[in-house]
């Protein structure tokens, strides 16, 4: 995934853009990228591609079924279309529950062969097209639908694009003008993934969890949830950076997926900064549909908890994911209730501001989100044991004291520097920025090509 096939795909696309300017024009470009994406996906996972083609056909038949001229094709009602698009997702998520062990040949798990990469994302993209084209009355061409379905940069793990959010870059776009900014974005993404996320996984998460949660010291139990949180952020945000950068190189803007989520002041803010495209999808197409128009506080709270638990299950049919979703649902409801109470009482509002302040609310939100990661990464029993053991931390010897304190100090430093970082970067002279990026490129090339560590897949490709 994002290996040589994606690199060759980009080179082919850019070469064609350079030598065949006609490809830049409207539908030509869409079809060109559709064909290119299908070829790349065929290398990644040919059997899964067939299922994706089938799902795209179902979406198209649902869309044209609404047209007055029905033509020779059978028309599928929208509700049936949505069910058919959800079916592969539900079946693939429940397979490990229904058939255990999952079918394999010579140790190779067959489900990895035909369950499409990024199935969760494809389902939501196509369902989003059906709902948006109905609600917003947006015309959909087949080339547009196919591009949304197959576009290889966003195919495996998002961002979840919609009819409105996948935008062609304007007339000023040329592939050469986008080379540097897109390249910078791609480099940042790879750096986050291979230098930060993979290092955490190889040197902290895997060795610590290899012994089992029961063997961990209290300081490790305290630090591990933070490590989980940083790992998933750097891995997924790194992937998103690469997807956005590659899409930009090919002339398309895809929406941002992360906006410094750990700087959030409350959980509602967190979900506007974390996996932005998924949370928007869940809020607009699920939560608001469940709650209905002008929903009261009770109905809204129930809708929130149901939506977030379904969000958890979207990641996988497991108690851990379900619990994670519920955890966030309850947190969102609590924040909403406190917010509503604060609107009615200025005294309460001031009291909250006095006791927590900006740093305090960010800290509390971070702690709440970090605890949630325990359920996301570990089986429920292990997660409970980890939290219980972490609460037994009393300092201990030098290492046991310094590691959690060091991690806390590091996070505090990042919080303080966080807001200044971007401004500082933009104020640096170009040669200095270029030197830094060149050094970063050297580190990334080393980590990708020269290091003998275990190659880690992107975490969100499993969803």
């Amino acid at each position, binding site marked *: 995934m994002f290996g040589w096939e994606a690199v060759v795909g980009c080179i082919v696309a850019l070469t064609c853009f350079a030598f065949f300017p006609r490809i830049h024009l409207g539908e030509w470009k869409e079809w060109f990228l559709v064909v290119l994406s299908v070829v790349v996906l065929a290398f990644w996972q040919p059997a899964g591609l067939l299922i994706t083609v089938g799902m795209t056909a179902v979406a198209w038949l649902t869309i044209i079924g609404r047209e007055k001229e029905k033509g020779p094709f059978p028309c599928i009602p929208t509700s049936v279309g949505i069910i058919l698009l959800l079916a592969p997702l539900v079946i693939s998520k429940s397979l490990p529950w229904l058939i255990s062990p999952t079918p394999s040949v010579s140790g190779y798990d067959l489900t990895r062969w035909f369950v499409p990469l990024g199935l969760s994302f494809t389902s939501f993209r196509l369902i989003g097209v059906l709902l948006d084209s109905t609600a917003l009355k947006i015309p959909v061409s087949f080339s547009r639908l196919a591009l949304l379905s197959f576009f290889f940069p966003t195919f495996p793990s998002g961002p979840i694009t919609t009819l409105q959010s996948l935008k062609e870059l304007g007339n000023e776009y040329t592939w050469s003008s986008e080379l540097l900014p897109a390249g910078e974005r791609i480099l940042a993404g790879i750096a986050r993934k291979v230098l930060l996320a993979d290092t955490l996984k190889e040197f902290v998460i895997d060795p610590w969890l290899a012994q089992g949660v029961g063997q961990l010291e209290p300081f490790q139990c305290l630090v591990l949830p933070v490590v989980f949180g940083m790992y998933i952020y750097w891995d997924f945000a790194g992937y998103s950076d690469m997807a956005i950068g590659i899409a930009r190189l090919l002339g398309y803007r895809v929406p941002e997926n992360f906006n410094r989520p750990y700087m959030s002041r409350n959980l509602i803010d967190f979900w506007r900064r974390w996996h932005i495209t998924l949370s928007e999808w869940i809020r607009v197409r699920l939560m608001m549909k469940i709650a209905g128009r002008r929903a009261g506080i009770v109905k809204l709270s129930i809708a929130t908890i149901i939506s977030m638990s379904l969000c958890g299950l979207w990641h996988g049919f497991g108690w851990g994911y379900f619990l994670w979703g519920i955890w966030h649902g309850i947190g969102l409801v609590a924040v909403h209730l406190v917010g509503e109470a604060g609107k009615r009482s200025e005294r309460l509002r001031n009291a909250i501001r006095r006791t927590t302040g900006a740093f305090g609310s960010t800290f509390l939100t971070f702690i709440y989100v970090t605890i949630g990661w325990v359920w996301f990464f570990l089986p429920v029993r292990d997660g409970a044991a980890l939290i219980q053991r972490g609460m037994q931390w009393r300092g201990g010897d030098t290492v046991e004291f310094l590691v959690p304190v060091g991690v806390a100090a590091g996070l505090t430093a990042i919080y303080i520097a966080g807001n200044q970082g971007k401004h500082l970067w933009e104020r640096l002279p170009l040669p200095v920025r270029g030197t830094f*990026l060149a*050094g970063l*490129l050297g580190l990334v090339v080393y980590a990708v090509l*020269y*290091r003998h560590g275990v190659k880690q897949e992107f975490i969100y490709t499993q969803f």
Partner: protein
Amino acid sequence: MKRYFRYLWYLIVILLTLDLCVRAESSLRWGAPFWGPYSFEGMMVDDGLGGRNRPFARFEKWVINGQGFQGPELRIPKPEGVVRIGVAGASEIFGLYESPGCDLTSQVRKKLERSAPGRFEVVNLATPGMSIPRIIELYERLIRKFEFDAIVYYPSPAMYLDGQAPAFRKPISRRTVNDTGSTPYAWDLRLPRKTWEMLRERLPVRLQVEMKRYQIARKRRNHPENWVWERHTPPERVRLFHDHLLELINTFQEDATRVMIATHANRFRNVSTDMNDPYMVGWIRFYPRASGWSLLDMEEKANLIIRELAGNFPVTVVDVEKEVGKNLDHYADFVHFTDSGATLAAKAVTESILSLYPYTHSN
């Protein structure tokens, strides 16, 4: 123009960063010096008569002790009751591809320690490219004083198909012989070697084979057609192998050192292996005068000579060829062992040693 200088500067930064990363990884992984010279070639020194291990050298998993061997340093005089075994040979025994501690000699040491704790000392005398004349010369000059009870020698018959056959070299004067190996070696850039290793892992096998074929063709270019031994193993080279081996036996036996000679193993089942086999092409690249046919024929003749000499002289044959067999999992390339291959070879050597020096708990 300014822009091009800037790009050149960025390229330098990238390369410097890569080199620093290579140094940092070797330091963390192998304890390598961060700034000093550090290379595989730096472990060898030419002392005027040929290559041997540089004392106190280290590179990645290989550690050479102060006496120029791999393994524990040996006391002089030899402690009472200890059986001292040396294992000599070229790169097959030096250990190229095995995991750390899994080369043949290390495994023999462990097996003997398990069977007879404290009774045996085992050291690795091998140097890549060590020929029979070279081991004889080193024995006479440097190894003899350690009073080995037995030396296991693993010959490399293919050396006798090189452009120039192995031969004894005489120093021009005593001063050209450098016993300490203290000649400083040039500072090496680490990135090129690491880049080559990385490319070898990633380049398609077919491309690598083509590159090796090209190198073979280049080496053969300036020679007449009959220079290459296509279907012919020169009898004078086979005879030379026999004579050198005989001299080795006589030299060791002068000191009552027991001689154990191993048969040579290789991965090829078929004498008519052609130039499409990537491992055969890799082997011929070292001996461009040979063909697949002549290499395998030389191996067969050499192993026959070893068995014949054992019949006529007090020499123990260690049948490594039979023990390792032709299972491809045991070979990392044409002749060098994987961990499993070294395990089987070590088993054969250990059994032979224990048959010569049986151990009971009362010993």
